[in-house]
């Protein structure tokens, strides 16, 4: 398959990303090489709890950011998905980590999609 180029292509790619990966992050920067403090913190949390995650760098194509923001109706990145569900951005993931909710969610077997 050719690399996505249009906004519509990217919306399709997003659906594929989040269905094929249990934890998926749309971030500023590559995996473990964030170019923004909030993206860095989200990746650090998943590393700390020892959960594998996949990342798509929103700077790798100019259509990714508008596609993901329209898909979730959410204005900022990073954006985190678990089991295909939009979980939120850095603030929500941090709160869920601090309360233990995130670890609990990830200890459970992957929700069937």
């Amino acid at each position, binding site marked *: 398959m050719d690399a996505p180029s249009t906004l519509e292509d990217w919306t399709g790619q997003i659906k594929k990303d989040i269905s094929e990966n249990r934890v998926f992050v749309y971030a500023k920067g590559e995996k473990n090489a964030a170019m923004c403090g909030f993206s860095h913190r989200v990746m650090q949390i998943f590393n700390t709890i020892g959960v594998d995650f996949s990342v798509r760098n929103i700077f790798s194509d100019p259509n990714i950011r508008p596609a993901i923001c329209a898909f979730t109706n959410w*204005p*900022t990145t990073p954006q985190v998905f678990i089991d295909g569900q939009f979980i*939120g*951005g850095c*603030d*929500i993931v941090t709160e869920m980590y601090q309360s233990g909710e995130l670890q609990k969610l990830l200890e459970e077997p992957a929700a069937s999609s």
Partner: protein
Amino acid sequence: MIPIDEVKSKIEEALPGARVQVGTFSGDDHFEAVVEAPQFRGKTRVEQHRMVYAALDGLIGGAMHALALKTVPLDPDSAT
């Protein structure tokens, strides 16, 4: 640059009865806010954050580079 007071009043107008604290960090375009509002009750965190983003109507990602946000559902009986 958006004044802190403007950010605060936009949120308060959209969510009557809310307690709102707004500040900045690492520069004038990185905002942080704690919003306690009765309207958050029964909503998911994602929905609560969307309500605040909606109140700021396009500022986030534009004039506001970032908004570190904490939302707290407020018990209407405790509102003063």
